[in-house]
């Protein structure tokens, strides 16, 4: 990736800043520096009545540190040296500050403004001060600005983090709609899974929708994987009411499209759900429907609901941590999360039952 404009300019000035240190002896450098600082402070005080010159410079230094997150090692080295140099600047700080402020406009201006605010209430400085007093004042101001800069940087970082998280949420909410036949889309959910785990780490209190399921499950629990139109789904065995072979399904009029009908089983009626149509109605086409050959019903707990499936894959024991649990019910409360290894959705059977009882589709929310 190419460097940003800021980084390039900072690198350039870093090189500029390096040069005097190799040429000027330390003692002479200190002397020169103190004199320069005095002159600058006095001249600045004359202009603005404020002594924030060094503070501004420090601000730019901090900004430099923040901005210099380039992966290039050389650049980092340069910045480390620059930091040392900034502790005792030897160049025309006002000029440099001016130059850098053009590059890092927002933050510098912001902090200058903050410094203005801070100093606004103060009385104008006395016209004559000793060199030590001036230096002391500069240091204290610089300290204040550094603190403010630190706060702003933290804010910026937290903003960036929250932006990332919100984008993760968006992606995550889009995920389950796209659990589909496409393998490519499955790979998408892999990325999603990573985001999910990050989200899970961030949020302290999971919403009850998946929290309840997680409470019910042991740390290690068994799930049954089954296939529906090329899509693999997992159901925790604790929520599995049984497996029924599909024999004859009686169609009932006036029911939703996803309601395949009723099959009798031991004097009881099983409500058969067209899983493909319910889980991914947006992908459901006549061609897809023609290719589906439902063989079994995955019974949900002790209810009359059975999810039609084409084949049963296997039952495996997995750890809770092997699932990226969804933290927000969102549009699909029936989807508890994603089993990382198999990259398939795991059902929140309780929520699913609620939705089916209410005649809701997969994207409706439980209110």
């Amino acid at each position, binding site marked *: 990736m190419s460097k940003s404009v800021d980084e390039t300019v900072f690198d350039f000035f870093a090189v500029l800043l390096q040069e005097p240190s190799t040429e000027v002896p330390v003692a002479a450098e200190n002397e020169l520096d103190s004199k320069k600082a005095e002159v600058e402070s006095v001249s600045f005080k004359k202009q603005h009545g404020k002594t924030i010159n060094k503070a501004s410079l420090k601000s730019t230094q901090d900004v430099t540190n923040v901005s210099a997150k380039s992966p290039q090692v050389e650049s980092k080295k340069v910045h480390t040296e620059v930091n040392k140099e900034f502790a005792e600047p030897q160049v025309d700080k006002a000029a440099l500050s001016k130059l850098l402020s053009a590059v890092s406009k927002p933050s510098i201006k912001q902090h200058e403004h903050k410094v203005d605010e801070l100093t606004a209430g103060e009385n104008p400085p006395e016209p004559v001060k000793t060199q030590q007093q001036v230096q002391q004042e500069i240091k204290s101001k610089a300290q204040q600005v550094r603190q403010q800069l630190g706060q702003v940087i933290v804010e910026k970082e937290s903003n960036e983090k929250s932006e990332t998280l919100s984008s993760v949420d968006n992606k995550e909410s889009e995920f389950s709609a796209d659990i589909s036949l496409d393998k490519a889309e499955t790979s998408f959910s892999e990325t999603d899974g990573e985001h999910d785990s990050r989200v899970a780490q961030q949020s302290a209190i999971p919403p009850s929708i998946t929290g309840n399921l997680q409470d019910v499950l042991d740390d290690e629990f068994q799930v049954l994987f089954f296939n529906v139109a090329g899509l693999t789904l997992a159901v925790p065995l604790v929520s599995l009411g049984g497996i029924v072979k599909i*024999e*004859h399904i*009686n*169609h*009932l*009029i*006036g*029911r*939703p499209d996803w*309601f395949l009908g*009723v099959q*009798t089983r031991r*004097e*009881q*009626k099983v*409500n058969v759900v067209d899983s493909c149509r319910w889980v991914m109605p947006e992908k459901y086409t006549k061609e897809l429907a023609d290719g589906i050959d439902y063989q079994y019903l995955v019974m949900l707990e002790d209810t*009359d609901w059975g999810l039609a499936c084409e084949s049963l894959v296997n039952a495996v024991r997995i750890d809770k941590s092997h699932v990226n649990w969804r933290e927000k019910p969102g549009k699909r409360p029936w989807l508890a999360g994603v089993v990382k290894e198999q990259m398939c959705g795991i059902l929140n059977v309780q929520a699913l039952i609620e939705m*089916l*009882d209410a*005649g809701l589709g997969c994207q409706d929310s439980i209110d």
Partner: protein
Amino acid sequence: MTDSRNVAAVAAGKEDVVLQWVTFKLDNETYGINVMQVQEVLRYTEIAPVPGAPLYVLGIINLRGNVVTVIDTRSRFGLDAAEVDDSSRIVIIEAEKQVIGILVDSVAEVVYLRRSEIDNAPNVGTEESAKFIQGVSNRDNELLILVDLDKLLSDDEWAEITQL
């Protein structure tokens, strides 16, 4: 479930009435209608279309001098249309004090059902046709869907077909 209902019925002191149902086929499903509402079953005869009639009305037939309106049951139940064949029948029924005919794929038999053998249909869906089903019964591992003929048409529709 059935046992518990029986126990409840006995406990309530109610008589477990036996009802007779005429069964017919529509789209490979078996439906039942109360035998008391069935007047007769006719082979398919020519149905005269009525201009301006609602979509669910196939037309009229002349039944021994009386004009009887024939309802398209498939259309009413939201099923796909099918060709009429030799097994097609027109069942003449009486509902809401009116005599109408319903076209079905075939008529099967008359079955006897105890009231206790009738279960509620799954309460899913809000489509209009859902209200036609008054219950279901499991007979020989086959589901019999019991139709409430009085709800086959709404009050307005019942009134409308009298004007045809």
